[in-house]
């Protein structure tokens, strides 16, 4: 089963390597990983999407905890939470399909963030499935390139990771 795990870590040299090395060394899988500093610049927050049985996920969270630089680990899967991902997509913008691109972007509440004579670069945020759907709709129009961010997630309500 897919799990979304947030990990609060020390914002130090080598911490990302410790976390990713833990996953590869123990044969755990990472579907996506997003990292950035938090409000407190001495810590970073990682959002890891992984898959595994309950026993594997239990090992993953415990092993993460065991790393000295890890401060907190939260598995969002069993609680109410919001997840967002951002995607940029560069598409062919021929005079014939520009209107369709604009319409799609509007439907998905995206934005056009860059325009050239032959291309539009679109930005869309949302859940993974929304982005999948958006890209699916764009495909026939000719996608040149995409960049997806990996998910970030947060528990609903007052509870916070710190």
């Amino acid at each position, binding site marked *: 089963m897919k799990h979304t795990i947030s990990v609060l870590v020390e914002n130090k*040299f*080598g911490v990302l390597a410790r976390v990713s090395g833990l996953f590869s060394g123990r044969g755990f899988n990472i579907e996506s990983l997003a990292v950035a500093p938090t409000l407190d610049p001495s810590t970073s927050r990682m959002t890891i999407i992984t898959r595994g049985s309950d*026993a594997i996920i239990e090992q993953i969270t415990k092993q993460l905890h065991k790393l000295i630089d890890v401060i907190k680990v939260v598995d969002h899967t069993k609680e109410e939470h919001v997840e967002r991902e951002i995607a940029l997509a560069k598409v062919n913008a021929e005079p014939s399909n520009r209107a369709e691109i604009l319409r799609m972007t509007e439907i998905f509440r995206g934005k056009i963030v860059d325009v050239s004579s032959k291309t539009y670069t679109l930005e869309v945020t949302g859940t993974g499935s929304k982005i999948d759907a958006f890209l699916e709709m764009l495909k026939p129009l000719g996608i040149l390139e995409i960049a997806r961010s990996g998910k970030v997630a947060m528990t609903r309500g007052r509870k916070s990771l710190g």
Partner: protein
Amino acid sequence: MEFTGAQIFVKSLLELKAKTIFGYPGGVVLPLYDELFKNPELRHILVRHEQGAVHMADGYARATGDVGVALVTSGPGATNAVTGIATAYMDSVPIVVFTGQVPTALIGNDAFQEADIIGITRPCVKHSYLVRNVKDLARTIAEAFYIASTGKPGPVVVDLPKDVITTSCEYHFPTKVSIRSYSPTRVGHPRQIAKLADILCEAKNPVLYVGGGAIASGASEELAKLATITKTPVTETLMGLGSFPSDHELNLGMLGMHGTYRANMAITDADLIVALGARFDDRVTGKLDEFAPNATIAQIDIDPTAISKNVKCHLPVVGNLKENLSKLNDIIAKRTIDWDKKGAPWLATIAKWKAENALKYSQKKESIKPQFVLEIINEITGGDAIYTTEVGQNQMWAAQYLKLNEPRTFLTSGGLGTMGFGFPAAIGAQAAFPDKVVIGIAGDGSIQMNMQEMTTAVQSRLPVIIVILNNGFLGMVRQWQELFYDGRYAYSCMEAQPDFVKLAEAHGALGFRVTKPAEVKPTIEKAIKARRPTLIDCVVDREENVYPMVPAGAPINKMLLA
């Protein structure tokens, strides 16, 4: 007042009460060595290979419970240390390994003798530091010792670029270490401990399954109390040997692949297994699906990842074993149960297993059986010795036959199974206890992996005794080939061997060869009296096997017995 990084290094180590460093100098660590030269109160033992240095620090730590310290140079010095670090990691041994590093400005430039040792060792350290500023040095060293020795112990690597140890700054040694992301749980949940007492009171066929955690946490006394009060039999893992006296009537001996018949039968028939600082390693469980099918599993462990990793645990207690056992004993003491009566039927069943199949071998007149050598050692030392082993048959026979009275007297590479560990570990233990008898049990294959350290023992006047059980084979490999590869001894035969006696002598040590059973005892006695590094080459029966044996992948009650 300002001090150089090298001076801070030595001051910090003295502050931490380190007494001995095992090391090997080289280019970028010269400033550290210059300071060690000026501070002889910090004893430096010069090794002959960096792997030896780390195993010695490891042996020192296992024998004392204190943090072992090794110092090596950058590049190849550091990479040579990796096997030692991985060995300590797998067995949770507290050591701190200082590695030299090229100056910070050169890191990443493929400089001479540069290796990314932090990267290389990342999967086999508890933690590691690359010190980039001399101002962080004292705090880093204090943290390294703290992390190595607390919680589940383990190795910490501290990488020291040359400019960091030559730059000066004010020196303040931290009075207290606190790391916000690291606070190991010490005491388990009281309700869990009470529940554990309840199920122990109800169990008909309970077994205490004891691992290295009992030794790491110093829980022998509490363990003995629990076992003797509740009349619960004890079986130990390879790492747990020594935590409970070998000759105690409740001791079933080691369990697992080469465990005793009664230990493996008892575990299989148990209705309650209380794992104490043990992690259900594959060498212990055999085939997982058939491991202890009827048992409730309770576990006390400092490491949450050890809980339910391989075997589903029904009652976990996370925390320090000694403290939690002590709490458990307090609860047990209040229960009014006739433990003798409750335990009698189960102990009678175990006694029957013991009578059916005890460890055995037959010593004839001509050739020496390896087990016989170990029994002679028992007779001579009465258990008043520190033993180390290499890996393979020598290790398993030592585990089965040596009589241990105390923890920290049986030092062996259990997790990683490192050949070449035992001899340097013996030197490390001897450095900690110069007056004790330290005996390294070796095979003729293993000893050749770190034989060069004999000169270290000679130079440092450490009177270790090495007993080679020499069968001219990589014995355990040969045993597997005999049993599972139709006797095709593919490259397991050491046809050419050095003359070990001459080799010992060439190193400046004593060497003896023993070929007849009658010579074993007087030779070992002579070696103990000599108080010099001594090697005894015991020529033993070539094709003796270690039994019982559970074939890989079989359930542990299906043992080959001969």
